[in-house]
């Protein structure tokens, strides 16, 4: 009823192929962007912005990256954490070696390093399929993490083995390093995310995205239709790792400020994988919803009793949080194995036919 395309006519294929062909969607997205750019920085508490929004958006970026690989190209990866690490270490090295170049440039450039590494570890995907491929990415995960610890050059031989975000600014406003305001960091993250999401959506809707999905859905048929599997898969690894690398660099520069290799462990890989699955494989909106759920919800649950003034031992809160999240994951998989993205679609469908049930 409220959500119908009736009366909206498309006058060309370009219109029909737009991201949001329906007017209500376009209005919706404008409202969301306005909230994200104006309301959140103005009314959000520093805790909300820095502990919930920033990591959530950064992890969304990683989730988009993994979604490109797993959701669009159908290749499972458990090495996301390490690919993010590559981005973080690359950005750290670049930013310290060339301090005069704007840090945003390096954040974006660092993705290319993880893309390259991603391609190397993507090579076995030609022969190895499905869950078996997980071992190749696990090899990446553990090998890269080992490198982060073992190669002193990566940390500029820091005795603690950790890497830090240097203080850098943009237009005179400090955006990274200690002392950068959460608003500044938030706006950087948001802008990078919006821009890269737009690019991702362009890629997946176009020729390249279609090839990935062909390989995902039926690789033999794709091959018989002239798609060369290896370059297609490697491109997916590259693009995916690029996004993950940028996310890693952002995690270091805009969120933690200082990280050690262990932060890029398999837990992180799993976390991102969760986001992708819960959000919905092969859906960019799903990546947002999934990241919101997996990144923000634990924090909310964890600090909810505190905020509500309920006294509970912190360990119990943590244990219960872990259980709730685990339970919710199972719950949502059961309710809708295709993730929030599908729920979202079904919701839209219901709105469209409202007030009739079908």
């Amino acid at each position, binding site marked *: 009823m409220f959500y119908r395309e009736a009366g909206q006519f498309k006058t060309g294929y370009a219109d029909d192929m737009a991201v949001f062909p329906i007017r209500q969607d376009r209005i919706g997205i404008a409202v969301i962007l306005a909230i994200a750019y104006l309301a959140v920085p103005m009314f959000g508490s520093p805790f909300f912005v820095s502990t919930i929004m920033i990591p959530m958006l950064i992890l969304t970026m990683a989730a988009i990256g993994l979604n490109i690989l797993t959701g669009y190209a159908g290749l499972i990866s458990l090495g996301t954490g390490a690919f993010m690490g590559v981005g973080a270490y690359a950005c750290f090295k670049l930013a310290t070696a060339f301090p005069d170049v704007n840090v945003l440039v390096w954040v974006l450039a660092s993705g290319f390093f993880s893309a390259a590494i991603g391609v190397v570890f993507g090579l076995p995907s030609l022969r190895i399929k499905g869950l078996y491929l997980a071992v190749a990415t696990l090899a990446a995960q553990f090998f890269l993490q080992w490198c982060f610890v073992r190669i002193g050059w990566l940390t500029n031989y820091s005795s603690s083995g950790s890497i830090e975000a240097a203080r850098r600014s943009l237009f005179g406003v400090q955006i990274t390093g200690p002392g950068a305001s959460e608003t500044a960091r938030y706006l950087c993250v948001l802008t990078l995310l919006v821009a890269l999401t737009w690019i991702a959506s362009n890629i997946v809707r176009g020729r390249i995205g279609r090839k990935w999905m062909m390989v995902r859905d039926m690789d033999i048929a794709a091959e018989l239709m002239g798609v060369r599997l290896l370059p297609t898969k490697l491109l997916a690894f590259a693009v995916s790792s690029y996004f993950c690398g940028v996310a890693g660099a952002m995690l270091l520069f805009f969120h933690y400020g200082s990280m050690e290799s262990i932060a890029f462990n398999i837990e992180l890989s799993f976390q991102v994988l969760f986001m992708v699955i819960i959000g919905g494989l092969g859906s960019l909106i799903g990546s947002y919803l999934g990241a919101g759920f997996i990144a923000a919800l634990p924090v909310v649950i964890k600090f909810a009793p505190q905020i509500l003034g309920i006294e509970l031992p912190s360990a119990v809160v943590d244990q219960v949080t872990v259980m709730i999240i685990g339970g919710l994951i199972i719950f949502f998989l059961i309710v809708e194995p295709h993730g929030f993205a599908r729920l979202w679609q*079904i919701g839209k*469908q*219901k709105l469209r*036919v409202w007030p009739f049930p*079908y």
Partner: protein
Amino acid sequence: MSDPILAVNNIEVIYDHVILVLKGVSLTVPKGGIVAILGANGAGKTTTLKAISNLLHAERGEVTKGDILFKGEAVQDRSPNELVRRGCIQVMEGRHCFGHLTVEENLLTGAFTRTDGRAAIRADLEKVYGFFPRLKVRRQSQAGYTSGGEQQMVAIGRALMSRPDMILLDEPSMGLAPQIVEEIFEIVRRLNASEGVSFLLAEQNTNVALRYATYGYILESGRVVLDGDAKALRENEDVKEFYLGVAAAGRKSFKDVKHYKRRKRWLA
């Protein structure tokens, strides 16, 4: 008509909570009958069969209205396993063999619910090989590597192994050589006559189906639009034109199909 072995009363099926596929389908299969469900693609034949065998929930579909009686008992809430135990088994569309199991192992899985001992199972295995000699040749190959037709035989043979009272056959003729199609329907008739097995079959191959069936239902867009004795259906003008391909002037060639479309009368 004797007591129905299966009665489907006015069922409605919804997939994914929003897609309404069956809009009130009713049908009955008499004990010892061969009933065909005919209809175009997407009419809901498969859905009807899955609703009966309770395989729907594995596809996120559910029966929201109506009831299904097998041997007089409501079976909507039974598991597929229980239904097989009670003697109703489905042969799924698109074969669904266990690719990694050998042909023989595939057949043996059909006997999973049986408790009457190895010897009886062996005997039935031989019987199935008797029906499908080609399977005997390929008994040790992995089913995943057998040809499409061979897989269809495996699927049917597997169902026979459970010694059912009623078989739901979904498109048994699809992809089979003409000879085998006839053979399969002969087997259907034989099982029906000698062992009293009832059949409900969904078919596109109307020609054959109406030759072997005793009764037929025609489904369009989730509704039964026509039903009647097989013979009566064969005589129906519309059925003749749209399903049997014989117009007044005899069988027309595929080469000369014209580009016009006559509306089906029952849709008017």
